[in-house]
């Protein structure tokens, strides 16, 4: 394949009818798929697809803290690693942890720490892995959504699930849940993580610039989207157990016929 020439003009992100490059309206989320409990070895796990993002989350713990000196006497230590697979982007990404990945590991951890009842497990660690298999913008938010599901799946007590979503400004207009190209060529990006019942924002970052009015309206859009995602999370978590029930009922029926 020939090396691409540098783009002279940013691509058309919003057409004249107000639709985005992938056919969405400005206030529309990308299609989301959430699955819980897919890894056997992990204590809890979740898989998230949001647009072209594909993210695997795994939780181990609470378990013995190693190295021992990191343990805290009054609560569990939560550790998080956000990592992008070398094949997750167009150009091979070096598998070594980059500056960006270290930052995202930290903000994902900090967005989840307020909900985890870590004081129930003193002197232990809870290890959280967010592995991006395919990346398409907004992966920190999808990572938080998945990681909180994986925590719940591990049976770790927490006050609530955390949902996350980004808004941004693209060609002068606020747009929900930015895709990769909208993030790259847009004017602003505002990722938000939200805990609905507690009415708590646990992640708020921004790059680019927004006016105060835009910020307020955008934050409102993001919170609304987080509520939607939160509903999907609950559904996904419970679905796992209802699915098992259906299988058994089906089996019983077929036995009657035989």
């Amino acid at each position: 394949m020939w090396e691409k020439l540098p783009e002279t003009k940013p691509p058309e992100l919003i057409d004249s009818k107000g639709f985005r490059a992938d056919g969405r309206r400005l206030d529309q989320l990308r299609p989301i798929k959430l699955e819980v409990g897919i890894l056997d070895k992990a204590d809890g796990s979740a898989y998230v697809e949001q647009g072209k993002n594909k993210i695997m989350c795994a939780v181990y713990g609470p378990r013995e803290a190693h190295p021992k000196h990191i343990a805290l006497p009054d609560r569990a230590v939560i550790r998080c690693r956000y990592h992008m697979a070398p094949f997750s982007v167009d150009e091979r990404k070096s598998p070594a942890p980059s500056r960006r990945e270290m930052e995202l590991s930290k903000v994902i951890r900090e967005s989840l720490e307020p909900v985890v009842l870590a004081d129930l497990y003193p002197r232990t660690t809870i290890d959280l892995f967010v592995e991006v298999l395919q990346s398409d913008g907004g992966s920190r938010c999808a990572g938080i959504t998945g990681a909180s599901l994986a925590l719940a799946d591990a049976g770790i007590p927490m006050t609530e699930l955390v949902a996350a979503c980004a808004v941004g400004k693209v060609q002068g207009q606020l747009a929900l849940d930015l895709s990769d190209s909208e993030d790259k060529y847009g004017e602003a990006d505002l990722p938000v993580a939200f805990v609905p019942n507690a009415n708590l924002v646990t992640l708020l970052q921004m790059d680019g610039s927004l006016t105060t009015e835009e910020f307020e309206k955008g934050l409102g859009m993001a919170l609304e989207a987080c509520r939607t995602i939160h509903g999907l999370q609950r559904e996904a978590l419970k679905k796992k157990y209802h699915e098992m029930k259906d299988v058994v009922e089906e089996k019983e029926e077929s036995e009657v016929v035989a």
Partner: protein
Amino acid sequence: MVLVAEVKQVVAPGELVAEGDHIVGDNVYRVGNQIFSASVGIVEADGNRVLVVPLKGGYIPMVGDMVAGRIVDVGLSGWSVDILAPYPAMLPASETPGPRGARRRDLSETFDVGDMVLAQVLAFDRTRDPLLTTKGPGLGKVSTGRVVEISAAKIPRLIGRKGSMIGMLKRETGCQITVGRNGVAMVWGKSPEGERVAVEAIYMVEREAHKRGLTDRVREMIVKAGVVGEVARD
């Protein structure tokens, strides 16, 4: 005092369970007048107390629990035991039955690395690692039988209300079954076939722990497998 969720309903963390002045049980928390779930689990009400029985989760030691563990290290005055908890357990030599002097010489004669032991949690709190004892009936080294590892969250279900599930399993499979609170069950049968069915039944309880009428379904499975039900005596 209203139970918003039904008893036996599956709830997610953050879901409203009850409103009013209930007593807050395990895996629920109170905000003002409302009680929310803190885990994925099944809502239970015990008088005025509401709680959520978790569907998943590891083992956290409690004083008095019977646990099955594996010896990982032999020290000068005791053993380190892996009891599948986030905390390493210690079994001091003074907590094994028998005369003192004989024990003192070489601890690996009593329990060696890799041995399975049945023990009881003697002491444990937030600040101290669990301390075990093998003084007591049925405790000590286990060198026969089959070990079945399941999730510790499913152990109450395996025992059943007043031991209904475990009693049925023993009766129907003719096996002797001991259950450690840490998610380890041990099965001793008269025949390998009986043991196999009992192990299968235990896994079935783990898989379908959150469903009603499980005892009858497990019994059916055992009867179908054609094991002669007779209580093992030892």
